[in-house]
């Protein structure tokens, strides 16, 4: 069993590319932390729920977008099928949540 850990290391060009990508992901991470803190602060300040709930949902959607597009690379080329599948899932998810809540509330 050959240990090939050190064979074929990427060239400087690709190493730099990976580094640039990593910096973008670090910025994404910092933004996600900031959004999380904002969300917790919104709740701690006791904001009125008609403002707080849409704001919290918006913050969550943006964070999840970061997660999908940056951490999971959906912004990169060759992610048409993943987008189709995840948006298909999200579409069905919205209908599911609406159906279950509306059935009980009305």
């Amino acid at each position, binding site marked *: 069993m050959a240990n*090939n850990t050190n064979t074929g290391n990427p060239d400087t060009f690709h190493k730099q590319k990976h580094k640039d990508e990593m910096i973008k992901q670090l910025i994404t991470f910092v933004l996600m932390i900031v959004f*999380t803190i904002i969300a917790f602060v919104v709740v701690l300040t006791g904001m009125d729920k008609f403002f707080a709930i849409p704001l919290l949902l918006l913050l969550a959607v943006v964070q999840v977008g970061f997660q999908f597009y940056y951490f999971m690379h959906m912004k990169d080329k060759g992610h048409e099928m993943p987008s189709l599948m995840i948006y298909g899932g999200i579409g069905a998810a919205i209908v599911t949540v609406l159906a279950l809540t509306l059935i009980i*509330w009305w």
Partner: protein
Amino acid sequence: MSHDHSLNPETMPHNPEKATLEGKNKFLGLWFFLGGETVLFASLFGTYLALKNSTAGGPSSEELFGLELVFIMTMLLLTSSLTSVYAMYHMKNNDFKKMQLWLGITGLLGLAFLSLEIYEFYHYIHDYGFTFRSSAFGSAFYTLVGFHGGHVLFGLCWLTAIMVRNAKRGLNLYNAPKFNTFSLYWHFIDVVWVFIFTVVYLMGKVG
């Protein structure tokens, strides 16, 4: 694996996780699975939202939840998402040891998250008598949050399995897709958690 040069090439391609047909299929298969998982979690979220006020005289979400613990859990899981990004960064640079190190850190953060979740459930059951059977709210809460915790547990087992199995093998085109699919799954766990801390805990506190 050393007899198979197609999986152990002289020079690693730039995207080792998608260089083979099997790798491409694993990638698509996992995204297909995540699409389904989205619907599954949506049904649990829908149930929770519909039943969260049916407390049957027991504690309500405002009385029950403490934001400090949830905040720490959120930070742990968010950070573990970043560490798995680091692991994939080292995978693309063909640095197996550093990849294993960052995967290990990811696993430890996941374990810390899971321990806090178990403590949280224990706290609710012992100090509030709030159980799976105490109300419709209880059933919906433990099913949703517990299902996510189950996903974390499954992820930890998966991570341990691929780390141990490939420890001596080094990185090649056979296992790079495996590490990559794990990292996608782990990010998805974080996606679900973002909605749990928003919809269950924060919106539960707002009322």
